[in-house]
């Protein structure tokens, strides 16, 4: 998912500041303009809209198509977006929500906060087997623990070997962050009933649990831990932008959990036409070429030209649960994590 890798690259540090100011302007813009047509309010997560994220480029590309304006409003991470939508209820300002994932899909749908879309999804990868008429996928990837090969000589090849090692790790809170939630499923898929014990074991390796992906990744790059929970695609960023090859994703034999990032239209949006147009745009060839090299995830349509670095990524097998199972179990799993990780 994320783009703005908080690396030594100075400029991306600008991003958040710029983004904050944009938001301020935006806020006043929104309140003064009210629901004036041709301004699409999009809720997303923070790294999506940073200067180096897909946000600004997509904004520009879409503006050309529709003679409208896209305003991004950012929360820390995917789960926070959904929480915010729930809190706001019908008072929400959002037209489109970008950045939920397959783990949240059914729960979001059941909360009655979305309306069906009219997007033509026939171009999507058949591998995704996309059925939903409420959400549209815009990228996908696999959760993975990223490490620095200069620090970790023999990377773990499974969750078990990671937990039994004396290496440190940072992950994200599953209550706020989609990678954190991904780990929740991963642990459950691998350990099943024994997940509680596994969480306890993981607590010994854990440096800290952060609220969002950005915080965790920044800390990792500062050298605070040996591993960080991120994506199989994260190394591509370091290869393409920084030309660094020491950051790698650990390939786990038992498989990885796949994340499909999704977008949908708020039930309370009055701009259905424009919102649908935006979703259609998200899966267009044009947008799909932008997303992999800004959000550092894989495209959801075929024939997208990708930098060579993407061929050097791990290609893990998929394990996990259906969105329905996740929706049903998420609360219980979180409770289990909470109880076990505190010990």
């Amino acid at each position: 998912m994320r783009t703005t890798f908080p690396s030594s690259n100075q400029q991306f540090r600008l991003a958040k500041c710029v983004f904050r100011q944009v938001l301020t302007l935006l806020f006043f813009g929104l309140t003064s303009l009210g629901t004036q047509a041709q301004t699409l309010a999009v809720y997303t997560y923070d790294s999506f809209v940073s200067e180096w994220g897909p946000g600004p480029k997509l904004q520009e590309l879409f503006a050309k198509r529709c003679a409208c304006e896209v305003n991004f409003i950012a929360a820390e991470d995917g789960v926070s977006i959904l929480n915010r939508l729930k809190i706001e209820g019908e008072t929400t300002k959002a037209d489109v929500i970008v950045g939920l994932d397959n783990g949240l899909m059914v729960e979001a749908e059941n909360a009655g906060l979305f309306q069906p879309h009219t997007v033509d999804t026939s171009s999507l990868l058949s591998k995704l087997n996309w059925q939903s008429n409420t959400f549209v996928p815009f990228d996908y990837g696999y959760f993975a623990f990223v490490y620095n090969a200069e620090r970790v000589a023999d990377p773990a090849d499974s969750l078990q070997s990671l937990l039994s090692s004396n290496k440190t790790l940072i992950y994200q809170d599953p209550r706020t962050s989609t990678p954190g939630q991904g780990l929740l499923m991963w642990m459950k898929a691998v350990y099943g009933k024994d997940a509680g014990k596994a969480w306890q074991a993981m607590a010994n390796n854990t440096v800290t649990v952060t609220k969002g992906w950005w915080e965790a990744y920044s800390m990792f790059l500062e050298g605070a831990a040996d591993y960080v929970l991120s994506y199989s695609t994260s190394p591509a960023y370091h290869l393409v932008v920084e030309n660094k090859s020491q950051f790698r994703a650990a390939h786990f034999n038992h498989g990885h959990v796949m994340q499909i990032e999704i977008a949908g239209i708020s039930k309370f949006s009055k701009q259905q036409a424009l919102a649908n147009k935006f979703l259609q745009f998200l899966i267009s060839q044009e947008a799909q070429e932008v997303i992999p090299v800004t959000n550092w995830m894989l495209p959801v349509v075929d024939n997208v030209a990708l930098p060579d670095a993407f061929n050097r990524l791990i290609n893990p097998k998929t394990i996990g649960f259906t969105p329905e199972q996740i929706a049903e179990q998420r609360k219980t799993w979180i409770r289990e994590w909470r109880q076990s990780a505190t010990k």
Partner: protein
Amino acid sequence: MPNSVKPGSENGGKARPNKFMRLGQVLGWCSLAFMSGTTLLAFFGLLNFSGQGFDFGFLQDPYLWQIIEFTFIQAIFSAGLSLLFAWPVALALLHKRDSWHKRIFLSFCILCFVMPTLIVITGLVALLGHQGLVGRWMWEGWNLYGLTGILIAHVYLNFPFAVRCIYLQLQAIPASRWKLARQLKLSRWQRFRYLEWPSAQLVSWLATGFILVLCFNSFAVVLALGGGPQATTLEVAIYQALKYDFNIPEALILAWLQLILAGSLYLLVTTLGQLQWLGNLSQERKPLPSSGKFERLLYNLFYGIAWCVMVAPLIALLPKIFSQPLTENFWQAIVTPTMTSLVLAALATTIALGLAYLVLQPYRIARRLGTTTYIWIDGLASHALVIPAMVLSVGIFVFFIRKIDLDIYGMVFVCIINALVSVPFALSQLKGPLLNYDQSYRHLLSTLKLSRWQRFTVEWQFMKPAIRSATAFVAVLTLGDVAIYSIFGHQDFVTLPWLIYSYASTYRMTEAAMAAILLLIICSTVVAFLEYQRRPRSKKVC
């Protein structure tokens, strides 16, 4: 002190002051009603959310008990360690001759105690984090996050307070006792056993209790340095239930537990006695028994270490500023939060002081008339001390969440709640001087037939130092608020502490350090002002 004047002599047939007083009294009761009303509203909010009751099953969740256990453990350790470190330093201070650095040290103790916690957190990360000045030399497996970091931050914030409390008691030991000790040729241990310890024993326990309560309610430190579910306090759990999980029934249970536990802890501590820590420091040199070379060395060592410990996290901020160039628009980005914080502090302080002063109107009359009403007024006005700010905020948040757009009005609540929780502190600063004033000048004034305005000017002149120091005190408290802001805050109105938090949590230490130093400068200025105002007389807090 109850006045001996009979109620009958009060009016003396003077219509004007009487009317004035009545107006003051009415306004006073109104502000009391406002304060209690807000609390009631919060309780109403805490009772349920859109018909969802409590989730009592949550009470059986082991997670809950682990949080409670951890909250107690970290609070007990923080308080115990603070006391343990405070004693040697206080003894060293007692035996050190008065000097400029000692005076600065004692003022610095006040600053440490009221300093916005995020400055300390940023400083500690800069010092002991993985890339920190000292942190990088730490042993393998060193981790600032978790209980270690929480304890370090809590001790840093609170032991200077204990030092001051104990030192004030120690220096109040009369000279005659020291002389006696000298004549009896008491050993060092005997002096401690029979002289120093008994005089500061009560205050030690009180300070420990008070620090325990403060750490029990600690929010920012645990949020920033907690490092996940194994180190969560009730206060942070409330925030997480509300903001991470959007699980209001759970948040409500947590809030009630926090209220019951923190509230009774506070009541327990305050029934034991009152703490004096801002009190006057006498410059008089006591005839202390001369200490041996080794003893003096130890004192200097303790004193030196205390200086280093207190300065280190702040000094650690400096190299961070230069470690990397600031982002170009950092200064632009920091202007709005600084202004937001300043405006917020100014407004909240004005409201808090206004409320406190108005509440004192019926209070002073009750005192004058010798009725027991004043106890009620005092209790009502100070009730916010028992209710953690987080609980108050959550209650009000839940009450208003679907009624008004908290995106827009959230900041109004940040301001009002900050003001409400500061009223007791303002009261404690203003009460004494105002009663003093009444006792000394009321008779004289009533014979002078002054106009309303003249009376007001006289009172203002008398009260000015107290008002100023109350202002400074409340302003610093409000400037450092994180808990209330975390509930109502909005991304378009970021305050300076929250900005520091977001920088520090994404490890942008250069920016975090710079913003922390800015906040530190603002707060030190205010504390310097407070110290300056406080000189003439002593005051009590809590």
